[in-house]
């Protein structure tokens, strides 16, 4: 079972560049999430989705965009990368809206 798959694992961007972090899950979960993890700060919710075509902002959405065209995929878009977006990004999914989260292995992003 693949679970939640994220690509790429590592990326270095220059300030102002754009990129898309890919996330796909094969568990048929309706609920999907993007978190960022900064040292000593825990995880902060960027965006979430409750199903195909439905997304909403989390705690720290500025500078990011998402889309959810299928149940399986939930890509995260950075339009104009800034140094403050240097972080580790995790995609997650869940079966219920208040249940256990299943995480991908993360993307380490550096913006220089």
């Amino acid at each position: 079972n693949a679970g939640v798959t994220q690509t790429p694992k590592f990326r270095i961007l220059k300030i102002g560049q754009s990129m898309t972090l890919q996330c796909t899950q094969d568990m048929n979960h309706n609920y999907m999430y993007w978190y960022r993890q900064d040292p000593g700060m825990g995880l902060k919710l960027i965006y979430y989705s409750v199903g195909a075509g439905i997304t909403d902002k989390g705690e720290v959405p500025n500078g990011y965009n998402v889309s959810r065209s299928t149940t399986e995929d939930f890509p995260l878009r950075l339009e104009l990368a800034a140094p403050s977006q240097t972080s580790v990004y995790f995609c997650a999914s869940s079966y219920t809206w208040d249940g256990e989260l299943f995480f991908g292995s993360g993307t380490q992003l550096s913006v220089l």
Partner: protein
Amino acid sequence: AQSVTQLDSQVPVFEEAPVELRCNYSSSVSVYLFWYVQYPNQGLQLLLKYLSGSTLVKGINGFEAEFNKSQTSFHLRKPSVHISDTAEYFCAVIRRGGGFKTIFGAGTRLFVKA
């Protein structure tokens, strides 16, 4: 709103010693509680969860946690740790019936020494 405080940022302990990782939460409504573990260079995985019922919850790898409603705590314990338990541990809460937004603590780094 909910919040989570993990009282120790780092916990060094010798192998085969007991360990307790402390977690306090704040919420005006009922919550579900979780502990997740993150091994180096990996994503988080569920260690255990408290939804209802018995306040003592057992999880994977010999860990257990006790829900204390009066003290709003959910401390994680293991009677004898192994080198392989070296990881970061996150306490998390989510509002019952009003989900989407799991709130995580800042994490506790457990370092097991030989």
